[in-house]
């Protein structure tokens, strides 16, 4: 299982599912829905939190939360 926490700088992925049923609704509202593309924009200096772009929303989340979002990594960023 690959999650958002495993993305590398600049890498993108498509959201598949959530490992936790009660993922905060706020995350969904910001566009974190299955099928949407998520990109890792920045990692904070101490490796946490991470800063992602999902569906046009730029948000910072902690790794614990990122681990709950399953994705398919898009190997070639240009393909999107």
């Amino acid at each position, binding site marked *: 299982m690959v999650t958002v926490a495993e993305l590398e700088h600049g890498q993108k992925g498509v959201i598949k599912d959530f490992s936790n049923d009660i993922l905060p609704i*706020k995350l969904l509202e*910001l566009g974190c829905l299955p099928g949407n593309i998520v990109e890792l924009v*920045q990692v904070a*200096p101490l490796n946490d*939190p991470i800063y992602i772009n999902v*569906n046009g929303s730029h948000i*910072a*989340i902690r790794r614990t*939360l990122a681990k709950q979002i399953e994705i398919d990594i898009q190997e070639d960023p240009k393909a999107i």
Partner: protein
Amino acid sequence: MSKNINVALIGNPNTGKTSVFNALTGLKQKVGNYPGITVEKKMGVCKLPNGVKANILDLPGTYSLNTTSLDESVVVEVLLNKNDKSYPDVAVVVCDVENLKRNLLLFTQIKDLKIPAILVINMADRMSRKGISLDVAALEEKLDTKIALVSTRKNNGVPRIKELIADYASLSADPNVDTSRISPEYFSRLQKAFPNEDLYKLWLVITQDVNFTDIEKKRIEDATSFSTKSKTELKKLQHKETVLRYQFINNTLKETYKVDLQTAKGLRASLDKILTHKIFGYVIFFAILLLIFQAIFDWSTYPMDFIDEQFAIASEWLKNTLPPGVFTDLLAEGILAGIGGVVIFIPQIAFLFLFISLLEESGYMSRVVFLMDRLMRPFGLSGKSVVPLISGTACAIPAVMATRTIENWKERLITILVTPFTTCSARLPVYLILIALVIPEGRFLGLSYQALTLMLLYLIGFGMALFSAMVLNKILKIKSRSLFMAEMPTYRLPLLKNVGYTVLEKTKSFVFGAGKIILAISIVLWFLGSNGISDDFKNAESIVTQRIEEQGLTPYSKNYIQNNLDGYSEEGKQDSIRIMTPILKERARAQEIAGYKLEHSYIGYAGKAIEPVVKPLGYDWKIGIAVLTSFAAREVFVGTLATIYSVGSDEEETIKNRMAAELDASGKKPLFNLASGISLMLFYAFAMQCMSTLAIVKRETNTWKWPLLQLLFMSVFAYLVALTAFQILN
């Protein structure tokens, strides 16, 4: 006269909602709190083109009607309670053109409440730069609304909003999305149980943590005609609702909203690379902090000295103009000084909020949160507490006010409670004089002991703040979601108008909110310090005068006069000496009377009464008095000792020498020695001795419970630490 229209201004954070509010209402704004809670309530009046007036209510920013904080609950409560007098006739939903998709989620929810809604698409001036094209007419039709394209930065489109508000009666109040589709069976049962209620409203009451709506939650829970669902099931349905809404929005935008990614070139990526860089990120942040410190410590001293001077002049003028008496004293020394004590904080508050609002408006603040989050986490705090905590090093008052940006109530409360531990600038004069008195000169690795002590005191303050945050995080039983999520908004040039409004509003809220309490306490302290019940107090003047006649001035006063005259004799100005001698004698007499009076005032007796309590800390009753009066503001410590020792408080060197000469009870050792000095510094480091901070904490937490607990805990802790230090060192 026709009734004013109620308009609710709603929108996601970072959409420029506040700019729209400012553009609509100008300076006709009123900021208060919602009854019983600490959420800010911003209201303003706007005159519409048809002559009708509109009451604009600026609701807290929210991503949706699914509430996770107190601020968001307020939004839902206002929208659900038809009987409330601020229930909106029309909602104005503000969106950012770049984040239209996400912003529309909230819009569809408002529409589904059947409140007529106007869509304001803000930041329209950025469209061409971002390669965005929009078919407004088609979008209006699909969303069943009227749209105003606005750019508050370029001052475009605001009249159109006003026209649409004036014409609100013609707006459709039909919903966008049929929520019942997420579970037709559940919703039909719900409708059967409550045939007269609106389904979406019922749904919100069931799923949201809200009070004061016209539909009672209990009524729904008690209704047995349909089975209630478990929390997890409801959560799943909420997820489905969100997906459904996004489907509608995606369909709506497919044909009306286009982004040409080729033209979209962002400042974001390149700025983020530098501002959140592993090294430069911190360097820049600390440089900005330094600038803020410079402003609060240094630049604000000019206006503060000016204010101080003006109040001294005014007080003097009052005393000379009005007939002497109790009333004049109350006015000149009690009330006026009290008001001065409030006004004196304005420069620091204004400077801090100038910077904070610049940082927030530009989008940089979120990057600070991002950079610092990991460092704060071990203490149960997040990156959002960093700026308030660090501002506390200047002054706890604006720092406590700055915690409003922390959405999580538990985190905010902890930050408010621990901020007063950080070394504020009022502790500095106390530290400096004590360090000079008790810490030996000398160097350790090239650094002077005195400088090291000062640095250690700063570290102790900050460390204690973090440590107590960790403890509070464990013991405070406040239900709050520990979800950390920060939107990283686009970088923007701050709008000076918004910055100006913020500074003005924060200053006003301090002066009128906390100012009253500060004024009241300072009048009480003044009264206690300048009144006494005993004959000694009433006859202070004759007693001291008689003593001077019989025994002459105290050795200290003689020294004071001699020192002042020395300057003249060196220059051989005999005339000056002749003129100055009686003036200095009179001054010395007045100082001795003032000292005698303070000693026999209510506060003087209180100081003597607490002597047994402070003795184990190495203090005498005089220090006891100074500790008590420090409650008005810590820096008063030095001035009070000056009065008690009957020295003019104008020269620090004089006070220091006088303090150095003071002997302890045994009469062999200086009163201010290493043990008592360190005990005193530690006491000042930890004790809650600032009524202004207590007043602002009361205002920000809306109860006396927290400031009183703070006072109790910090003072007891300070006492124990000082006690231990003195007993060990002595």
